[in-house]
């Protein structure tokens, strides 16, 4: 006997839908409109100015640098967090005596606030800081850098701190994925004469795709939305060398150029959607076919 769908009343969706729409969807949609206006703190009227804000974004050196830095940060952290996370997960899926405690240790930084980690790293990354002193004491003095004050490397330093903090989170998701693979698959493969690499490529990798999928999405989207790491570690400096889209939005907000700020946000919105949605569809398809 089939019961009517009507019994599942749509009223129960309304509270969630209302909160989600009012505080997330409406700002996102009005943001699209405001990014084509000259909305400013110190002006009464709001005028439609076409693509002027976007033209400014693509001709302003600082704004272009912020976009470049955001992309560097996103790509570097996607690669770093996933490679290290996957390596840790595979190693900690082996029968090691200390694996439970090691898992907890590698995971633990990711539960702390980005603020905490960034402040702890600030004094260690100074020119005469702990990290350079360690390099010098083991004879690797040539590796020491002005981590947070050299405009050429500062964004890479911020990315490295983020990888340090969050690779353990990716590890936990890969571990969960690894543990869902039945052990007898590997036994069967060994009996059939498959080596370790062959087993990894033919069993682990395809069955790990859902975990890989979610991890790539999480790190990529999180990377493009980066704000707190940069805000606390460098504040966008030295000069504007480590500005990212997130810190530019805060700066525009502070300066009262709200139209420009929302335009920058619209650009981020477009970038995330253009990159994330095809990737999502592509990986879903691959998952089904394997």
């Amino acid at each position, binding site marked *: 006997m089939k019961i009517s769908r009507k019994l*599942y009343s749509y009223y129960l*969706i309304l509270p969630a839908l209302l*909160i989600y729409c009012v505080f997330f969807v409406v700002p996102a949609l009005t943001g699209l409109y405001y990014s084509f206006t000259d909305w400013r703190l110190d002006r009464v009227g709001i005028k439609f100015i076409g693509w002027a804000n976007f033209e400014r974004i693509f001709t302003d050196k600082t704004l272009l640098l912020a976009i470049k830095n955001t992309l560097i940060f996103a790509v570097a952290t996607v690669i770093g967090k996933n490679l290290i996370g996957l390596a840790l997960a595979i190693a900690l899926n082996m029968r090691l005596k200390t694996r439970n405690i*090691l898992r907890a240790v590698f995971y633990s930084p990711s539960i702390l606030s980005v603020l905490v980690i960034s402040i*702890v790293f600030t004094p*260690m990354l100074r020119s005469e800081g702990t990290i350079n002193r360690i390099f010098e004491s083991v004879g690797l003095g040539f590796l020491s850098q002005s981590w947070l004050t050299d405009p050429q490397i500062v964004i890479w330093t911020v990315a490295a701190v983020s990888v340090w903090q969050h690779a353990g989170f990716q590890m936990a*998701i890969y571990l969960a*994925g690894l543990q869902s693979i039945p052990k007898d698959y590997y036994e069967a493969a060994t009996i059939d004469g498959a080596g370790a690499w062959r087993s990894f490529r033919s069993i682990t990798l395809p069955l790990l795709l859902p975990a890989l999928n979610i991890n790539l999405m999480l790190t990529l989207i999180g990377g493009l939305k980066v704000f707190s790491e940069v805000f*606390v570690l460098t504040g966008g400096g030295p000069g504007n060398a480590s500005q990212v889209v997130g810190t530019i939005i805060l700066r525009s907000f502070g300066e009262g150029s709200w139209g420009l700020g929302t335009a920058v*946000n619209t650009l981020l919105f477009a970038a995330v959607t253009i990159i994330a949605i095809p990737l999502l569809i592509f990986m879903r398809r691959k998952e089904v076919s394997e």
Partner: protein
Amino acid sequence: MNYTRKMAWRNVLVEGFLILASLIVILPMLVMIFGSFMNNIEVMKFTLRLPSEWHFSNYVTVFQEGGLARAFWNGLLITGVSCAANIVTSSAAAFILTRRDTKLSNFLYMFFFMGLIAPMSVITTIRVVQAFGFYGSITSVIFIYASLNTAFSVFLYSGFIRSIPKALDEVAFLEGAGTLSVFFKIITPLILPVNATVAIMVFMSVWNDITIPLYFLTDSSDWTMPLSVYNFYGKFSRDWNLIFADLVLTSLPVLILYLFCQKYIVSGLTAGAVKG
């Protein structure tokens, strides 16, 4: 060398390497913890060493000068209420969305799912909140967190509710129960573990966040712990022992939650990893 012994050697090697690597994670944390007990001269070396004298008084100073007690309660209020609102609204929505399976409900599911991807538009959110007349207040922050976490929670609940057989609802409906009582009497007891997972994941992300308080909490008496710490860090940039003590105190609530609720965190991660 036979196969088993080769495997054993490999494991010892991997384990040794991992223990060395774990030092990279542990040492910076120890610098912070030991530093929080030092005096303000010793701490400036930023090296790994036990404090020559243990200054527990740093923690008292931080509490008095950093306004941490106030910030702790603000954080608890914000995370608690936004978590509760999020759990009730998202689980109810996920219940209907997964049971209906019509074009409209599938569209709504994707509509919520977009929230996992799209970045929030902060400046226009401020305008919306101003229109309601509560910009700068704790209320605004609670609504914003409840809204920001809807996508994640609906996604997590949907995966779980799909695995609950529909036959359970049908029996209740036949006996004349309404949608609400089926949801509260049949579904809610079954999804209690998911509630715990959602509560912990949302709690951790809200507690640790500085972005939303930075934009939306204009009055320092409303600040949460991370924002107070950030402000303290700016003001007391010479007293690193106090800064470290402040950081340890901010981290304690999430660390305690992690130690006692690991099981629920793992099940949340598993849902993501297995269902993608």
